[in-house]
């Protein structure tokens, strides 16, 4: 506090000199005691407003817009940050904070861990790739495509051989995307059941990348593997999930062999509805015995 008062006195002295030089008079403020300063400074217990409480679609900072309603209506069609205004060439504080908050959400989704108990709660059979830590997962994509030996043994033992369809789940680049699992998995199962197809136990792979389905495929010999995996988040959401599907996947197949449905989350394609759609695609893959670009949808 003494330091602060010292600084204030210095500023006042400097100002006095400046004003004197300009021919004005020094500020008429009386000397203030330390006690009076304490009384004037109030420390509030509280929080800054949550910058993310308002969606970017509804946030609008253009002063005196020509057509506010039109601009707001246009903003509803994009998650792009338009109408955020600026201070000189830079963002305003609010826009900057919102950007940083959304970026932090994305970072959390990537670096955050799926709770250890999650696979068991969902009744999944939990395994792991060759990655042993988040850092390794992020820096060694090749290891994220291979199941570790213990996992291979476990899956070979617990999963049925030669199933028509195996649903597989992996954290991928968003732990937050697992929020979609309780809605998408039963929707896929319901849809497949409608086609007379039952789905067996679901393997879960920690530190898994899309290529991990190519490692599982030959191991269990399923006709179709459908991998539900967290998407690399952007600034719109951290919860987006993709469903990758392939007919008899293996590491020998090209990337173009995969069929994908992306953007699955509450603000994109709702997970339950996406699951119903995924079930239909799986049926088409089974019928056509091809997937990816060779599959005519």
């Amino acid at each position, binding site marked *: 506090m003494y330091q602060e008062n010292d600084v204030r006195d210095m500023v006042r002295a400097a100002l006095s000199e400046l004003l004197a030089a300009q021919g004005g008079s020094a500020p008429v403020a009386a000397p203030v005691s330390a006690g009076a300063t304490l009384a004037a400074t109030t420390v509030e217990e509280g929080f800054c407003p949550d910058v993310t409480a308002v969606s970017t679609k509804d946030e609008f900072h253009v002063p005196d817009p020509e*057509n506010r309603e039109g601009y707001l209506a246009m903003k509803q069609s994009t998650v792009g940050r338009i109408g955020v205004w600026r201070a000189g060439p830079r963002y305003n504080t609010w826009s900057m904070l919102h950007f940083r908050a959304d970026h932090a959400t994305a970072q959390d989704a990537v670096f955050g861990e799926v709770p250890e108990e999650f696979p068991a709660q969902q009744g999944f059979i939990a395994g792991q790739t060759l990655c042993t830590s988040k850092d390794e997962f992020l820096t060694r994509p090749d290891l994220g495509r291979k199941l570790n030996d213990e996992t291979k043994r476990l899956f070979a033992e617990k999963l049925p051989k030669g199933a028509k369809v195996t649903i597989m789940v992996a954290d991928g680049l968003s732990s937050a995307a697992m929020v979609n699992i309780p809605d998408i998995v039963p929707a896929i199962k*319901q849809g497949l059941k409608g086609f007379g197809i039952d789905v067996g136990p679901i393997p879960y792979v920690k530190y898994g990348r899309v290529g991990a389905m190519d490692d599982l495929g030959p191991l269990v010999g399923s006709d179709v593997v459908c991998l539900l995996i967290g998407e690399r988040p952007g600034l719109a959401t951290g919860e987006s999930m993709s469903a990758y599907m392939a007919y008899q996947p293996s590491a020998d197949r090209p990337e173009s062999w995969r069929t994908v449905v992306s953007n699955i989350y509450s603000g994109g394609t709702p997970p339950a509805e*996406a699951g119903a759609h995924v079930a239909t695609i799986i049926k088409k893959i089974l019928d056509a015995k091809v997937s990816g670009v060779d599959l005519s949808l």
Partner: protein
Amino acid sequence: MSRGLGKDVLLSVGIDIGTSTTQVIFSHLTIQDMSSGFSVPRFEIVDKQIVYKSGIHTTPLLSPTRIDMAAVRGIVAGEYAKAGVDRTTIGTGAVVITGETARKENANEVVHYLSDFAGDFVVAAAGPELESLIAGRGAGADTYAKEHSTTVANYDVGGGTSNLAMFDRGRLVAATCLDIGGRLIRVDGGQITYVAPKIQELADSEGIRVRAGDRADIPTLKRVCQAMTRMLEMSLGLTPKSAFFPRIRTEQDKDIVLPGVPAFISFSGGVADHIYGSPDDSDPFRYGDIGVLLGQAIRESAALKLITRITPNETIRATVVGAGTHIAEISGSTIEYDESLLPLKNVPILKLNPADEASPTAMRQAIREKLEWFRLDGELQLVAIAFQGPRSPSFKQVGQLAQSIMEGAAELLAEGFPLVVISENDLAKVLGQAIRAALPGQRGFVCIDAVGVDSGDYVDIGTPTAKGRVLPVVVKTLLFR
């Protein structure tokens, strides 16, 4: 998987039987998957191309109160032949019967007969407000409002009625119809041969004498046209409504209050060419009616000049273009249905309100109660159960929805009707699969989304297009009552 592969072209027909003229157009509606190819498909109508426009025929009447059905059929058949169109290739379209013609004794019969004659999935549509909407869209007022993010009113001034539709950024916000038209006073050989009763009343209320048999005096008829124009001004909220105004509304019991004065106005219909300035106004009675004079009166109205005037895409053809190209919508792209049930025509809507949707119990109860509204002579009839639905439902919610719908509609199902479900939000595929899982036996159903409907609407659902991904849908706001 990429854009463009899921593309389909629908041949659409529009037939407009109006007070003065009968017209036919054919157009191509292009339906394309607008998704990135890496997400769920999203089909949209991306292009509307008119490929054939008929001549403008005089609407054949047997008497002032009856339409000559055989002659209308002849006109339509002739235009199909001239265009080289086989009725079995028609994918969608609409027959509309507009203006005074819609009030002829046999209008209902004619329009339904023609819709069957025109193609399998051609709908019959009518009703003053729907007519306004169709003409407004045909004139392009909705597109202008959307593209310029503004409000636009279109007035379709025809022979028997004037249809007002107001759009706010593409969305219809108000529609009405007045008994004002260019053919409501007819003139032959310098003599007035016919004055429509309501126009007679209007003239009388203004102290202007016009009677059938009188000499066609231009200054007098101009005054009548100015009085008619004032009715249009009142409907737009430009001047206070007179005591007579309610009389001139086509639907006497429905008042019209616009949400505000529109920023722009366009005029379509047969009279419009004379509002924007016709190449030849020298003979005011060239059509044997007051159409030219009415156009001039509207053009010169000081009040109407307060709204910035824009040129419509179509004038006399606005309604037929609207009917042929702007009536059909398409459902959402993830849906479930049994093809054997399609097409479905004239299915009345049982709409649930937000309170009905609040809980599974409320929903079940509301469906049961509202089904009773559709009981005719003790017999239930096919209805479509429509609701908004949650934005991103959990799987559990979907199961409850399916359960509520099936329990609520148990009586309908027991009597052998198929289940038709329409939601606004994107959930039809998962809901449809849930219904399929729970429906007893091989009962048929149709479950679609991305379609907004209201109580009192009727819906037509066509046969699948774009490789079965989407169904063409026509929502008819008002049929004959």
